[in-house]
């Protein structure tokens, strides 16, 4: 997917140090990488290495300690054109499913009425047709997470930040949703930055996998995954698939 075009998002020497009660905690040591338009990039790394922190910095939810995040403001408004799927579903329990999906529309003050159809469509896309009028409390954890994916897509963001969105799901649902996600990605032409613990998941989904070291994290590997697209489950048994997974596994062990 990378075609030498200029990146949608560039991180240059991004560092983050948390200071709590006098003690300093270096979360992000030094992170530098680009994400190109329409690229699917995964980030893997040990727990606590700062993956969530990194996504939150990109989304403007946390200030970075130093470094730069560069976007071309003309083609990408990072304040409005980002969709975030958080590690937890974070649904508003007082809103019906459909109203949860429409939350970004309300915040961005877009025309809600015009978007209702789109919200319905997205719910169908994540397999929740007919659940529009339920409350989150009536859904399973996996269903809630799928609502949050529909919500992150509703305002048609250019960049989708996904923080272990399928971490809490069983293997079968997760693999089904992987295929769904690839379909959505291909149909909508979004750029996706995807955080995961699953090495196989990262290889299956991505154009490129970025491996972070333990804290203070730095990039120890950026691996292009040159498996053919569109990918189906069969990809998983190709020898190249295993080779990629092994390489990531090894660099994680060293880092």
């Amino acid at each position, binding site marked *: 997917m990378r075609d030498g075009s200029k990146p949608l998002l560039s991180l240059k020497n991004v560092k983050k140090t948390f200071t709590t009660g006098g003690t300093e905690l270096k979360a992000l040591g030094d992170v530098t990488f680009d994400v190109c338009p329409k690229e699917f990039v995964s980030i893997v790394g040990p727990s606590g290495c700062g993956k969530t922190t990194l996504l939150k910095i990109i989304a403007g939810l946390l200030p970075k300690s130093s470094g730069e995040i560069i976007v071309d403001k003309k083609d990408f408004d990072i304040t409005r054109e980002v969709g975030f799927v958080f590690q937890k579903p974070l649904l508003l329990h007082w809103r019906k499913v459909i109203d949860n999906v429409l939350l970004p529309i309300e915040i961005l003050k877009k025309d809600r009425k015009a978007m209702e159809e789109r919200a319905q469509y997205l719910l169908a896309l994540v397999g929740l047709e007919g659940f529009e009028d339920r*409350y989150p409390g009536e859904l399973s954890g996996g269903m809630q997470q799928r609502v949050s994916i529909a919500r992150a897509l509703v305002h048609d963001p250019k960049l989708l930040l996904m923080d272990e969105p399928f971490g809490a799901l069983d293997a079968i649902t997760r693999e089904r949703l992987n295929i769904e996600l690839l379909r959505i990605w291909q149909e909508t032409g979004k750029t996706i930055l995807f955080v995961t613990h699953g090495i196989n998941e990262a290889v299956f989904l991505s154009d490129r996998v970025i491996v972070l070291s333990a804290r203070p994290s730095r990039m120890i590997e950026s691996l292009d995954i040159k498996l053919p697209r569109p990918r189906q489950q069969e990809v998983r048994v190709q020898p190249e698939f295993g080779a990629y997974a092994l390489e990531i596994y090894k660099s994680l062990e060293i880092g």
Partner: protein
Amino acid sequence: MKNLPTLKLSSLWARLKTPLVVFVLLVIWELCVRAFKIKEYILPSPIVALQHLFLPQPDANYSWIVHIRITLNELVISFLVTSVLGILIAIGLAWNSTIKKIIMPAFVFLNSLPIVAIAPLLVLWFGYGLKTNILIAFLVSFFPVVINTTVGLFEIEDDLLDLVKYLHGTKLQIFLKLRLPNSLPYIFTGLKISSTMCVVGVIVGEFVASDKGLGYIIINSQYTMDSPPIFAGLMLVSLFGVALFGIVSALERLCMPWQFRGRNEN
């Protein structure tokens, strides 16, 4: 098909058990008064008290219906004022932490004053009548709504705020879309407590600031040691309290359908 009648019976029981308990207590009361021959001016039997309410009393110089209407009117206005003002005050407190730091101690101080004791002072300042009565009821009952609403507006999962922040939503949006709906359960808890205290406030107000209403009848009958109207008045007052509480609870269900969806009452 077969368990339909039992189902109906059990829901009937659910609806009737509270009134039934009240009825049984009244019967016990009646029996005790008769069995121990308690004098009427010390403890009238419920039947005697109710007779005062429903049968014309030749020696009574008041009409129940007039005073009931006055008290109900005061109660409704006082509770509306308390609810609206209480919630608005809480929103003000939650909006700005400096305001909160300055005003909260004042409220705590105000609430710890024995309002009953300063009520005569209020009459002195603001005169006799409805306005003073409402003020007294408000002072007696505003605190629970204010405190609960303020807590509710703050008690929100930080991660939820990120939902609005990453799209650069405004403080007003965070308030309207997150904090306010999140605080509804707290608001209603506060309103429920305040509703019962408001009844107390209205009666206290009538004791000191009014020559009308059930509170007036109660205090006036006390001077003449005429106990049955006191008890009749008390029965009515508690009935109003229960009714107001019930209305708030019904409103709660209406405003928070997600809390009650799919749950059976029992």
